[in-house]
């Protein structure tokens, strides 16, 4: 029923627009062009009524629920509150001709239930009629008000622009508020975590084994939440990824922007961008099923050839290790680095290249001495963005790096990262008051702060760099 009204409203807005426009046209040249006058009338006809309907759609159920439970029969009022909720829910379901939830058996209260169902049916009818009536009244009232205001010197354009800027502000406020909400919830839960585990022990402890705290006979031992091994693992994987991605990405960007012929650029650039479109989970099983076994086979073979303690060590290298995850993550980051760097190198003015070439510098001297130094701040920013992606990346490390929190810088060991631990801590059945679960928020907050810092630095650097040419 409400939807029909919405359709009607849309039709009304078109009609209001047309009428407003016609009136404005008939009145001759005024302050605002006829389409603004029409838009003004349409806005007044639709927005107040639309807002009312939105409120009804969102909160209508609750309002009806509250109305229904206002005069509860004594027998129902005695029930525990969650049973009362279900009782009224069932009554409304019956009224709407749907099946009851069946969560509780209200056998003895059947009479009350039927009475309430009947009341709900009547009430729903009244409520709906009132809502729709009010909406139509608002629409017509708004239309009449706005239509009567139209005069040649009426500043409809300014009003319409006011409405539009209001809409834009509302959208951006929503986005900002959502972000603030996410950060606040993260901070709040992290705060609860730090009440049971000291921040110092968390940030500087070297042992990570949150499972211990799950045993009922044991209070969360401080030592079990030392996040240093996770930071070390994250850092190690990130470092390997950047060792792969930074040179390959940068060099392919230099090739693309400086050397590649138009046709080869037209082929290579889209291909690199395809790499960027592969879901990370695909990279994950590429790492786990292809790269991991190849690396293991390689190191085991080298171990077999060398022998001795080193050989023995290499013989028992597993599929899952920091190297596998890091290399595959590096491959994932190559298109990211190269496409950002390519844009930045292209932004270096051609006049600088001409200036250098005209001095008798070769192409490579020009790139080395003029283009790259000019692009350096931007390239650094691209690298920082890649680093913050590497730190936040989850799927590849989950599938290819292992789960054991080891404090090591050996790329052949299994390591675990902050993101992987958050995933393991928050999958399966949760108890949201145990430090084990809350630790995920502590980790999340730390991760957020680190990537935020990196992004802010990167953005600052990019800004500074932009000022140089504009």
């Amino acid at each position: 029923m409400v939807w029909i009204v919405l359709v009607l409203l849309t039709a009304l807005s078109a009609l209001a627009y047309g009428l407003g426009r016609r009136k404005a046209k008939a009145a001759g040249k005024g302050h605002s062009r006829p389409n603004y006058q029409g838009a003004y009338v349409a806005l007044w006809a639709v927005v107040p009524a639309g807002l009312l309907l939105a409120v009804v759609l969102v909160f209508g159920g609750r309002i009806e629920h509250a109305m229904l439970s206002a005069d509860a029969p004594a027998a129902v009022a005695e029930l525990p509150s969650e049973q009362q909720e279900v009782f009224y829910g069932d009554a409304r379901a019956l009224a709407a001709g749907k099946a009851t939830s069946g969560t509780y058996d209200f056998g003895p209260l059947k009479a009350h239930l039927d009475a309430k169902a009947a009341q709900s049916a009547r009430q729903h009818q009244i409520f709906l009629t009132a809502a729709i009536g009010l909406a139509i009244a608002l629409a017509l009232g708004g239309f009449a008000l706005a239509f009567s205001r139209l005069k040649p010197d009426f500043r409809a354009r300014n009003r319409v622009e006011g409405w539009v800027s209001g809409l834009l502000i509302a959208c951006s406020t929503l986005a900002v508020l959502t972000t603030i909400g996410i950060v606040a919830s993260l901070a709040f839960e992290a705060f609860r975590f730090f009440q049971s585990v000291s921040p110092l022990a968390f940030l500087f402890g070297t042992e990570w084994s949150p499972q211990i705290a799950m045993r009922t006979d044991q209070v969360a031992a401080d030592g079990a939440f030392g996040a240093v091994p996770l930071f070390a693992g994250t850092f190690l994987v990130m470092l390997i990824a950047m060792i792969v991605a930074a040179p390959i990405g940068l060099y392919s960007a230099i090739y693309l922007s400086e050397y590649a012929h138009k046709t080869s650029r037209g082929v290579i650039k889209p291909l690199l961008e395809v790499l960027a479109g592969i879901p990370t989970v695909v990279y994950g099983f590429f790492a786990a099923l292809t790269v991991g076994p190849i690396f293991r086979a390689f190191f085991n073979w080298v171990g077999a050839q060398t022998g001795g303690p080193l050989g023995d060590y290499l013989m028992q290298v597993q599929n899952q290790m920091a190297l596998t995850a890091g290399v595959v993550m590096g491959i994932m980051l190559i298109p990211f680095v190269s496409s950002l760097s390519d844009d930045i190198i292209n932004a270096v003015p051609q006049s600088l290249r001409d200036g250098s070439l005209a001095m008798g510098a070769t192409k490579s001297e020009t790139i080395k001495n003029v283009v790259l130094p000019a692009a350096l701040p931007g390239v650094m920013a691209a690298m920082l963005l890649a680093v913050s992606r590497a730190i936040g990346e989850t799927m590849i490390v989950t599938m290819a790096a292992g789960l054991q929190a080891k404090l090591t810088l050996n790329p052949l060991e299994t390591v675990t990262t902050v993101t992987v631990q958050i995933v393991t801590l928050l999958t399966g059945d949760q108890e949201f008051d145990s430090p084990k679960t809350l630790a995920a928020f502590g980790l999340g907050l730390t991760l957020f702060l680190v990537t935020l810092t990196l992004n802010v630095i990167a953005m600052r650097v990019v800004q500074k760099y932009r000022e140089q040419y504009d």
Partner: protein
Amino acid sequence: MQMTKNVTLARAEALPDHAPIKINAMGINVFYGEKQALFDVSIACPDRAVTALIGPSGCGKSTFLRCINRMNDTIVGCRVDGRIEIDNEDVNLKSLDPVVLRSRVGMVFQKPNPFPKSIFDNVAYGPKIHGFASSKSELEGIVEHSLKKAGLWGEVADRLHQPGTGLSGGQQQRLVIARAIAVNPEVILMDEPCSALDPIATAKIEELMDELREQYCIVIVTHSMAQAARVSQRTAFFHLGRLVEAGTTEAIFTNPTDPRTQDYITGRSG
């Protein structure tokens, strides 16, 4: 054969007696892909003098200028046919490395383009890549000498290590002239060097050109007839990719033989 004869004629009648020829272009045709931009241009530029190339936009004067230091090589699909002699040696041969040529032929562009480096490093750039200086003090000597020649030394001597991009437009243009001088070129090409500058900065650059011509062969592209008249000894008028007329500046401005030149310099076309 015919062409060579014409060129010889041009040399004989149009050049001031004292000036030996530095650049001698013969039958230059330039193509951008299918499109021909220059048609059979032959012109001689004397040493130790300023030659001005004038003409309406798109007439090919910048294209011709860029032939002299082979900057057109950097444009994909651009082909230059013909013979361009510098000191009687053809520099348009495929076998000749443009990198070597460009260290002999400096160029100043329309928009000042100092590198985002310090003033010192801007000027030291050429000497460094060509290995002119064997010691730091020698390099400092070259930088100081070049900046003095470009008339910029007094203004920047106390801030050599600040970025060159922080200078004013006119100073930047003199900085890139100093940068060009630092590799000790024989020819300096200037592509509308004053079009982005105010009258005072323009006057300084023109003064500088007048001093520099005592040592170099200068070829300048300009849109300002007044500038061509002030700074050049010889003028060449281009129109629609062809060289219409070339001669001493005085002759071109007071007594042009071609009606198109007449129209252009009096402002009736262009």
